């Protein structure tokens, strides 16, 4: 049972990932990525990490990917045209990645063959996670909050039009983009 579900979600994941590579239009790859994330949430549920799965759906699939879709829509990115500019990347990069992955896989095979994981092995109940998060990991939690703050400010400054006199609000970047779009809309 566990295996079937695992293979099901795993299959979707891999399909989505490969699709991301193959698709020529970014919107398609974005959606395939959303599919990958959703199926990953499924995988997390299989492992019992339900809170993580929920957050994965809400944060990753729900917020970040929407941002991506937003950007694609805003910039109406077209098809990818073939500009074979950097041979180095292909000739050097791809073999490098191949070698690295083969090596890592080989090492994993040799060393971790024995361990296995049960269905719902570790129930990631929100209560325990909260307990852990706000006690042991409080400092990282606070630091990440500051990180997010900085990211917001950075995004606002970067995305705002240089000559725009609009006072950069502390809005979510998404909202910022929307306002910016409206402004551009009015201009055109």
């Amino acid at each position, binding site marked *: 049972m566990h295996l079937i579900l695992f293979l099901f979600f795993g299959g979707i994941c891999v399909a989505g990932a490969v699709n991301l590579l193959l698709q020529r239009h970014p919107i398609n790859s974005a959606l395939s990525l959303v599919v990958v994330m959703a199926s990953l949430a499924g995988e997390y549920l299989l492992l019992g990490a339900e809170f993580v799965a929920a957050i994965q759906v809400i944060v990753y699939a729900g917020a970040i990917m929407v941002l991506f879709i937003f950007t694609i829509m805003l910039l109406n990115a077209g098809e990818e045209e073939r500009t074979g500019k*950097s041979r180095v990347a292909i000739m050097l990069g791809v073999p*490098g990645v191949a070698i*690295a992955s083969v090596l890592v896989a080989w090492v994993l095979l040799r060393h971790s063959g024995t361990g296995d994981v049960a269905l719902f092995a570790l129930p990631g109940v929100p209560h325990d996670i909260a307990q852990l998060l706000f006690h042991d990991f409080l400092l990282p939690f606070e630091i990440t909050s500051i990180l997010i703050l900085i990211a917001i400010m950075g995004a606002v400054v970067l995305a705002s039009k240089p000559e725009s006199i609009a006072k950069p609000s502390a809005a979510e970047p998404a909202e910022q983009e929307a306002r910016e779009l409206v402004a551009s809309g009015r201009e055109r």
Partner: protein
Amino acid sequence: MTPNPYLPIDSGPIADLWLIPVLPLAGAAINGMFGRRSSKTAITTIALVFPGVAFALALWLASGFSSASAPYVFDKSVHWIRAGNFQADFAFYLDQLSLVMLLVVTGVGFLIHIYSVGYMTEDDGYYRFMSYLNLFMFFMLTLVLAKNYLLMFIGWEGVGLASYLLIGFWFTKDSAAAAGKKAFIVNRIGDFGFLIALFLIIQHFHSLDFTAVFEQVAAKPTETAGVGVLTSIGLLLMVGAAGKSAQIPLYVWLPDAMEGPTPVSALIHAATMVTAGVYMVARSHIIFERAPGALTVVAVIGTLTALFAATIGIAQTDIKKVLAYSTVSQLGYMFMACGVAAFSAGIFHLMTHAFFKGLLFLAAGSVIHGVGGEQDMRKMGGLRKYMPWTFWTMTIATFAIAGIPPLAGFFSKDEILWMAYISPHGSRVFWLIGVITAFITSFYMFRLWFMTFFGEYRGGPATHDVTHQSADAHAMHDKHDQHGHGHGEPHESPWVMLGPLVVLAILSFVGGWVGIHRGFDRFLAPVFHSQEVAHGSLATADEEAAIAALEKQELILTGVSVAAGVLGLYLAWLLYYRRRDLPDKIAARLNGLYDAVVNKYYVDELYASLFVKPLVEGSSVILWKGVDQRMIDATVNNAAREARHVSDNVRHMQSGNLRSYAGWVAAGGAAVIGYMVWMGVR
């Protein structure tokens, strides 16, 4: 052990010896600092008063001195160096030997000062010249009166400096400057040997003070076999002496030193400085007596130099060059005397030589002065009529140096020859070479005499003989001797120059008599306790007959040397008076030898090619081009170029293309992972 009676004794009557050297120093300082602004008479008075007072003081000290009296000691020795167990002080010391030197230096020095007042009045660097002369007097006196080797060495260097300054007095003349440098460098080479000798003394005797060192040396046995400590010290001292007193290997600087004004040549290169080497050897006679090996080396060098320099003297045409080579050969005589352990004879000849060689130089100066700066004897002739005083004083000097009795030269030279003959350290060979040199000496001296004073005056008033061998020297000299030109007829020098000439003439006439009946020898006995003197004045008087035989033998040898002198006179008279054409014919016939002699056996050229050129070439080719450029600069420049090349190649990696960066990162990642896995697996 009872103190050896003949060692220098510290406890002598106290005398302010330090005054004697300090006075000329004061003179030099005053002239040096204020000379530029003060008037000529002021400079002259200072330049003469200070050495004169020093001379008077010396005379006063000499009056209270006799062979038996103990040496004066300046006990208020100022502490100078206190380093561990080694100490050296400013200590002065006057005994019979240094008294003689003192009198010679101050006496002859003072006369030359007077002479140079006349000679250098018109020169614009007059105050500078006078202060240098006083400075020289100061260093020479420190050298002579020093009580330890270190202070002597200071005098030694100072004298070298003074000679450099004075030779290169007319520094605008390149040849003068070059001669000054040459003198200084060759002296330094000699001083190098002297320094090492001092180091050896310090190492073995832990002190440089004469009394201390000589006590320890006296206690050591004479080194007969191999090169022991004393022999090596002796040899090294000899090297120093050879450097300073222009002996065989290091004599080349003296002939060139003639670039300086004539009074300088007289004072430094005849009377005083060059004799410093002889004085030093005499002073450290105890070391040499215990190192027979070193002694014979000294003798050999002395005789060889005497003969060698004399032969060169024959062919020289420049009057001062002839005198310079005669000085070298006379110094050779003195070293020969010291070499055969007849130190007192050496010092006696030193004194007489100072008189007649000083006179010869000063006379030559007045001759040059008279004919308007002309130094080439072939331009002179018949000056008898024009300069009677100079002629007569020069005659006395020439006869003295030739060793014609009753003049001074005969007594001292004969003493040396006799000592060379009979002294246990000497040998018949030295005596024979000595006689031959005596003959050559008298020949070239009378050649000079005849060429300068007899025949008709060959020098035209304004003619410039361009073909003359040392044309440049002549022309340059002309420029300096302002009043030379436009005089037409040669004239007699003023009295201020002739005065010293006359005094020196009297001295070189009378000087020799001091040596009759070993007078001089007995006077110096306390210093040299020369009981080995042939007559064995203190020896057991049993073999009256033996002494009588010795005296008879001595008379015979004296006769032989006088004959050699007369023969030289006759030959010079024949070639340069009767048959003036002969010399050129003879010269033509033995042209090879004649050219060699004229060119001073190409010794200068030899030294240049042996030492100077390789040094200069070596440093430029090997050090400059080889090491500096090809090694050091090259490495630096190459490193920079290589860095540029490498960075140029690497630059292409940063193509600005994001995906190539990713490619590189991936490749790097793979490499790292591969390495880690490989390490892990290994």
